[in-house]
Structures are given as C-alpha cells and as structure tokens.
C-alpha cells in the first residue's frame, strides 16, 4: 500500500491576526502543520501498521507546496514516521485550492499511490475543496470528512464512516481513491488495514509525537525538491483575495448575579424567551 499524504503549513491559529492596508500581515507568524493534515499523516501511518508500535508494511509519502521553510514541517512529519517527502517550491500565500489540486494531481500521476489522504480543510483558508477537486480531476472516487476508515485485506477497497449533518454515513470506495479526514479519525480504533492489523489493534487517542529515534531517523530521510516547471503545472489561482478585513467585533455584555436575573433579562430586555 502506497499512500500520499498532503501537508500544509498554517500560521498558528491561536495568534491574533494583524491587518494592514486590506492585507493580513504574516511577517511575524509562527508556522505549524495544519491540524487536519497532522491527523491525515497519523491516518496514513496507521494504515501501514499492525497496531501501535507494530510491524509496518507499505509506504507513506508526504507532499507539501511552499517555500524552503516548509522543510521544517516536513521534517516533523518524517519524524512521526513518514518514509519520504516531496516539497514543491511555490508561494503558498497565493495558491488557491485549484492550484494545489493541480499540483497534487501531477504528483499522483508520478507516484501512483493507492490512496491519497488529506485533511478536510486548512485552518487558514478554511476552503475545504482540495480533496474533492483532486478526486474530480483524477476521476477517482472520494470519501470526505472521515470519522473512520477500514482498508479491505485485498487492498482494493476501503469502507469508511463520514460524519454528515444528518448523522453518520457509511460509504465504500474502490481504490485508488481520495479521502479527507475529520477529527474522529484519531480514535483508538478508527483506522485499520485489514490483513495487516487485527480487530483488536489500537492506537493512542491522538496523533503521535515524534520520538527521539524518529527525529534522528528523519534527518536521513529524503525531502525531494521539485519545481512547478518540472511537474509541468500551471499553478495560477482562479480565486484571488482582493481584500481582507477584520470581522465586526462583539462587545462584551453584562454579568448577571443570578439565574433569576438572567431569565428576567432574557425575557424583558432581549425578548428571546
């Protein structure tokens, strides 16, 4: 099983954004791996493992697009256990979902993975499009917002659960396929490759930390630099951000002293109950 997993760096979501001249100033941003991509890496690794700390079978290739600095995030992914990484040089600030999907498609055509695993969205752009566009461009089946995935023993299909507005949907897709992961995917038993991991196989309820051994090993692993020209991809975005503004701020209201006062205010003042 060969799995391609996409990784995007994002500015630390806990830091306050700086606006200036209709732009966001990310000059002083501290960058980290998008949480959903971290979950995607964890998913990909579990699909090649017999259980926590168990035997491995298969290959996990991490892919990112961005400047040289993104090597730092990719090293972290290699330290978690990914086998190698590809860094496509580009300005990640101007790429849109379409540019990214085209780049990933070109890499898929070179690497020929059985499965592409993505986070369901990046927490900066919040677009939630790349996986679906990629699947559409490749003509592959897609399974988005996964809460669990079970890979069939013959490696030819995957059965997943997806959390949808109405409840939980169970879907089966033929491989190769594109999947995007949601929060629940890091549940202890949410991910399993049948034939490799037994029904009792389980992992921690979180993405793994890189071990010291993992960090040392990552230094020797390959991060291959590739240019857009080498891939033959036109990464021009179709969506341009023409302006940014801060959202309207809510004013803090009043503290009430008791439940009685709260209900009276909601009834008489706000008139919402």
């Amino acid at each position, binding site marked *: 099983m060969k799995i391609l997993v996409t990784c995007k760096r994002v500015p630390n979501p806990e830091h306050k954004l700086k606006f200036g001249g209709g732009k966001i100033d990310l000059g002083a941003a501290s960058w980290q791996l998008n949480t959903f991509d971290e979950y995607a890496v964890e998913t990909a690794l579990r699909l090649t493992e017999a259980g926590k700390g168990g035997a491995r079978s298969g290959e996990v290739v991490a892919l990112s697009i961005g400047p040289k600095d993104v090597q730092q995030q990719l090293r972290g992914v290699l330290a978690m256990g990914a086998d190698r990484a590809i860094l496509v040089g580009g300005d990640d600030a101007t790429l849109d979902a379409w540019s990214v999907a085209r780049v990933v498609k070109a890499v898929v055509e070179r690497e020929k993975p059985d499965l592409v695993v993505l986070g369901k969205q990046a927490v900066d752009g919040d*677009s939630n499009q790349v996986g679906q566009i990629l699947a559409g461009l490749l003509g592959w089946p897609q399974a988005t917002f996964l809460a669990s995935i079970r890979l069939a023993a013959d490696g030819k299909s995957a059965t997943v659960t997806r959390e949808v507005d109405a409840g939980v949907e169970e879907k089966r897709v033929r491989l190769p396929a594109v999947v995007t992961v949601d929060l629940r995917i890091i549940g202890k038993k949410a991910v399993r490759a049948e034939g490799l991991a037994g029904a009792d196989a389980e992992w921690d309820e979180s993405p793994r930390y890189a071990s010291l051994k993992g960090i040392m090993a990552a230094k020797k692993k390959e991060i291959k630099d590739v240019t857009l020209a080498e891939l033959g991809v036109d990464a021009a975005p179709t969506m341009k951000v023409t302006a940014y503004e801060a959202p309207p701020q809510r004013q803090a209201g009043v503290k009430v002293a008791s439940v009685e006062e*709260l209900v009276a205010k909601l009834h008489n003042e706000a008139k919402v109950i």
Partner: protein
Amino acid sequence: MGAVLVFCESDDKGVRSSSLPALTAGAALAKASGGPLVAVVIGKGVGAAAADAAKHASRVLAYDDAKLEAPLAETWAPQLADAVKRAGASALLGTASSTGKDILPRAAALLGAGMASDITAVVAANKFKRPAYAGNAIEEVEIGGSVVVASVRQTAFPPSAGGAAGAVETVAVGAVDALGAELVALHATQKSARPDLGEAKVVVSGGRGMREGKNFKVLEELTDLLGGALGASRAAADAGMVPNELQVGQTGRVVAPQLYIAVAISGAIQHLAGMKGSKVIVAINKNPEEPIFQVADYGLVDTWEKAIPALIAEVKKLKG
C-alpha cells in the same frame, strides 16, 4: 451574463429548508449578473421537490433516476455540471451543508471552475465575501473564468420566501457511473423532534466542563424546554461526550440562533467562529476569566451543576 443555478437538496416532501438561503443568495447573484435563477434537484422520485423548487426559481431542472438515489459526489457532481451547461449558467450555488461541501467542489473540478466556499455576501457577479482564519478575517474574493461555483453559508442569508412559478423540466439522465463508490448505510443519530442545529431559534451548547456525556442530560432538558437544538464545543465532541455532528465551530456547524447558551465552554477561537453571529449570547461558566465572556451579552459565573437546574426551574416558572 448567464443563468444562476442553485443546487437544492431535497427529501420526499420537498426542498430542504437548509437550501432556502442558497436560493436567496442565488437571487441576489442573478440580480447582479442579470440572468435568470434556475434550480436543480437530483435524486430518485424528486417530483415533489421539483414542484417545491419551482416556487423559488424561473426554471427547475429535475434529474430523477433510480441510480441517483444515494447522494454520492461521484454520481451527483456530473449532473450538476450537466445542469450548468444545460441552463447556460455562469454560476452554480448550493448550501455549505455536509452534502454541498462534498459535492460542489467536485462539480467545480468537472467544470474547470473556480470556487468560493462558505460565502456570506454577494458583492458582484464574480465577487463574494467569505470568512477565513476561523472567522477572524473576512476575505473579499474574485473568481476568474466563465463559470463560478460558491457554497453559501446558511446563516448569512434569509430563507427564500418563494412566490415564483417556474417551469419544471425533467432531464433524461445519461449513463451514471459511481466509479466504484457506494453508499452502504446512513445512520441518522439525532432522531429527536429537535430542530436542526443550523435552523434552531435557540441553541444550548456544552463544553469540556460538562466532563462526561451523561451530564448532557440536563442540557437536553433545558434545550427541549426552550424548543432548541443541542450543540457542543470541539473539546466536548473530541472527548466523545456527544456525536461530532453536534459540534459548533470552525470545523463543525455554524449557527446563528436568536439565543445561544454556552455552558461550561471556555470560548476557544474555533468555537467562537461557529456562533459569533448569534443574536443573543449567554455564557455560563464557573471561571470569570474565560474568553467566552468577552462575546457574551449576558454572563453568569457559576457551575453548570448549580446554574442549569435553577435555570430550568426559572424558565418553567416563566412559561407557567
């Protein structure tokens, strides 16, 4: 400019109420671009839905076929792409529901069209406003190309009032190829009589401070008393206290009810992104320093164990 096509999700009774705001956004876009508003419904036995959609559009395209019964992106996205061509549309819109988020970008891929997710305003025929960075920035985006696709944030537009009498056209569906994908089952978890989170007038949400799932019982009682929907923070959903579809926030549902009651929720940025648009926010938390109090209209510093039963009693008294 061409027509504006709106993807209407439906059930056997008609168009889902979650699609009505997308029709409103579609009407605004049709006004901006000078084209007609066309609705599209897809599924098996969508006659009632098509008739319902006709109240909101000048034309309805109905893709009605047994092979389209399951809402699979693999089979539905090609119908949307077909509908865009058939209607001569320059825009495709739909609600940013879990179905819309799954299918619309795939349709954009098939159309070679750029897409804006989660739009909150129509600025021009190819210009929209949308939140990014967990709602901490509002972007104005411009989509290039001859067709634009956008998913619509349900809470940002009022439901379409109807009043149109469009012509329904049943389309002969061509070959349907699911590409080896199949829907195995849908387990509807929230079978209660409660309104949907996205449409409820009142939402009561619990956070990490609720500690365990069984403690949500008391919140459910308050929710039902107020005729609302139950929600939760990501921390509570992550901890498995409630199903993930109750999660309110950047990565969950976005709500904007008349009244939002946040119980034992600290108010992380990503949670605020999902409820800041509520008309009135009440925060109940034992720690007065929590950031949730900075966005709350009314704050009560107390434990949920004490405050919620008292609140239930007080509301009951009010309702007589």
